[in-house]
């Protein structure tokens, strides 16, 4: 007895430190997860949004006597202690043939940041970095400070009204260039700008990124068609998947005999959520695009064959494929919501003379609505980030027409569309100018995260509102 008590006290002292430590281990896991998440967001925010800030331009003189102007991007150490190398964005592809320049830091004799350096955003040829000499318009000529003022006035006009204007420019090493003003999108003198001017210019760039279409094989310009395509596809997907998923869940939980078969179906549905998404893409391609779409073309669009209408990837097939992909999520969430409703509520309704349908529509479904919304939230989050299946069933690198326009029938379900996730992939790996694409990749990734967050928040607020309406949590 005595020795037993002594044993309990002295037993296995090595467990004592674990007993005290395990809450800290749990807390450390949370901290680590939070740290990684915030690192991800900070990286996206800094790299994505920083890209639009007007960068300082440098004029660099090399030991060879050559002079050029550009934006310093980053420095890299050369192998075997040969010093460092710095990457400059120099623009002027029409003059130099390249836009980027690696310079050994030891070769640099002089660096300065003159206020008169100008950066033009042009299409074609991309950015110009150099100096403004004069503006010519209809025989008139402005020089010096007047030229810059004239340029900003003209840029405020629509492009069609500055057809006649020309810019006379020189590069840092003195080469002259004549630039039609119609091809210029914006002009900046970043070294001369105050911080509020820079902020304004930054907001302007961000807005143009969000509202314009892509240029130069997606390495420049904006992502508006991709935002539009992503959101439209996700909305269509939700509209398709919600009724199907909810009805299926009602059948499984309320109507079906709760036997072995139902249990088997339920396990099957849950496991469908784990099927790799590309497999759904293959299914969508085979069944929706070639099968259903091909038949539709034969029956209704035979006059345009062999060029396909519905027999190729498009918005409808992409939405359907993603609806299929997210169906298990909606079914499982709805079923859990239905199972949580107390039997007393159903019996209460039935005992008052409600039919089964009335019980379902007036008591059970309203009570399960928050759970259904949870299912839709999860479905939206999954669908908005999905890229692999879309590549098979309708996403395009560059869609010439938006899926909604003023032309009858306004919503063109057969059209290919752009998607932020695919745009990101394409910009990162398939662009001609990888260096220029890097900041756009961060910006697009940030945007994708924001869109998913906004879609989710909408659903969460809706769910909160529904719960509040009933005055209590359930």
């Amino acid at each position, binding site marked *: 007895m005595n020795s037993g008590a002594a044993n309990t006290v002295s037993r296995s002292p090595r467990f004592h430190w674990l007993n005290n430590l395990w809450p800290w281990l749990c807390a450390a896991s949370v901290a680590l997860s939070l740290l990684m998440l915030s690192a991800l967001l900070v990286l996206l925010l800094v790299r994505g949004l920083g890209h639009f800030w007007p960068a300082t331009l440098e004029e660099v003189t090399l030991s060879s006597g050559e002079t050029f102007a550009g934006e310093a991007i980053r420095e890299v150490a050369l192998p075997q202690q040969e010093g460092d190398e710095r990457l400059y964005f120099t623009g002027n592809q029409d003059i130099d043939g390249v836009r980027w320049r690696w310079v050994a830091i030891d070769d640099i004799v002089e660096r300065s940041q003159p206020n008169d350096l100008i950066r033009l955003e042009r299409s074609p040829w991309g950015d110009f970095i150099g100096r403004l000499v004069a503006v010519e318009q209809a025989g008139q000529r402005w020089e010096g400070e007047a030229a810059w003022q004239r340029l900003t006035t003209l840029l405020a006009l629509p492009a069609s009204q500055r057809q006649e204007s020309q810019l006379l420019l020189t590069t840092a090493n003195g080469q002259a260039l004549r630039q039609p003003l119609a091809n210029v999108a914006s002009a900046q003198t970043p070294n001369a700008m105050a911080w509020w001017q820079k902020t304004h210019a930054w907001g302007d760039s961000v807005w143009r990124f969000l509202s314009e279409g892509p240029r130069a094989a997606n390495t420049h310009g904006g992502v508006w068609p991709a935002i539009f395509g992503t959101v439209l596809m996700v909305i269509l997907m939700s509209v398709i998947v919600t009724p199907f998923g909810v009805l299926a869940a009602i059948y499984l939980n309320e109507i079906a005999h709760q036997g072995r078969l139902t249990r088997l179906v339920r396990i099957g549905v849950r496991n469908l959520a784990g099927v790799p998404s590309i497999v759904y893409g293959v299914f969508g391609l085979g069944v929706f695009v070639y099968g259903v779409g091909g038949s539709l073309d034969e029956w209704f669009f035979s006059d345009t064959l062999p060029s396909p209408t519905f027999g190729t990837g498009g918005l409808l097939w992409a939405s359907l494929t993603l609806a299929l992909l997210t169906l298990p999520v909606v079914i499982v969430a709805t079923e859990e919501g239905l199972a949580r409703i107390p039997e007393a*509520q*159903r*019996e209460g309704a*039935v005992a*008052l*003379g409600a039919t089964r349908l009335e019980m379902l529509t007036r008591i059970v479904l309203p009570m399960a609505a928050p759970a259904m919304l949870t299912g839709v939230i999860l479905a939206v989050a999954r669908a908005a980030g999905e890229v692999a299946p879309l590549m098979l069933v309708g996403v395009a690198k560059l869609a010439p027409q938006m899926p909604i326009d003023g032309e009858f029938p306004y919503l063109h379900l057969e059209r290919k569309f752009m998607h932020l996730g695919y745009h990101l992939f394409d910009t990162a790996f398939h662009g001609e100018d990888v260096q220029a694409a890097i900041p756009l990749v961060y910006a697009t990734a940030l945007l994708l995260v924001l869109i998913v967050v906004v879609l989710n928040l909408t659903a969460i607020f809706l769910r909160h509102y529904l719960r509040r309406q009933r005055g209590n949590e359930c």
Partner: protein
Amino acid sequence: MLASSHSVNTSQAPVTHFSSEHSCLSIDHLSLAYAGKEALRDLTLSVPRHRVTAFIGPSGCGKSTLLRAINRLHDLNESVTHSGNIMLEGQDIHDPQTNVTELRRRVGMVFQTPNPFPMSIYENVAFGLRLQQRLPKRKRDDIIEWALTSAALWDEVKDRLHRSAWQLSGGQQQRLVIARTLAVQPDVLLLDEPASALDPISTLKIEELIRNLKSELTLVLVTHNMQQAARVSDYTAFLHQGELVEYGPTDQVFTNPRLQHTENYITGRIT
């Protein structure tokens, strides 16, 4: 001991019979089984109109099962089978001609735990009404006020009819559920241990309500609480293991039971 009481039961057939003008519900040789397991065995009794009839008995004796059978709530469970008849005002409730939703309107049911719907107090009471017919708002408001007054709840909730019913106390919720049932003007009100989840004061209010309601309709009360049965009921049926042991006026069953078995249960010598 138990076996002997059962044999006495069947031989003496201690069933109170009421003439048809006094009988509201008559149950005739009712047997019922859950997935083959017998819960009620050959039960025959008749419930008088405008009286409170209490079903008492130990847990699992089948008193709740009997109550639910009167409302045909067992229809929701496909594994339940039955034989025998239940007649409501001379009409067989299992007759294919009988409209089950109309039956459930006529036979209201209040459960052990209050189950107000997740909506406002007003909507809870209006729920059954809305299922029946479209009423003008004035008429509906009148019925709701009448139902809440009958359930002795009107004064407590008249200023917050559009607040959530889930914010009421347990006793108020149970009276709301009774009001909800009264609103569709049933002939019979079945109460399945309506006060077992409530505090003593709420219990008293419910009991008073039951006594007051019997001028309006027929009440059937299932209870575990002997004192409650004695306080509120006019007739008492004692069930044991799915069989009716003794049935008679409450005074007689409690003061002078005919069977030893009943006396043992009432005095707490068996449970």
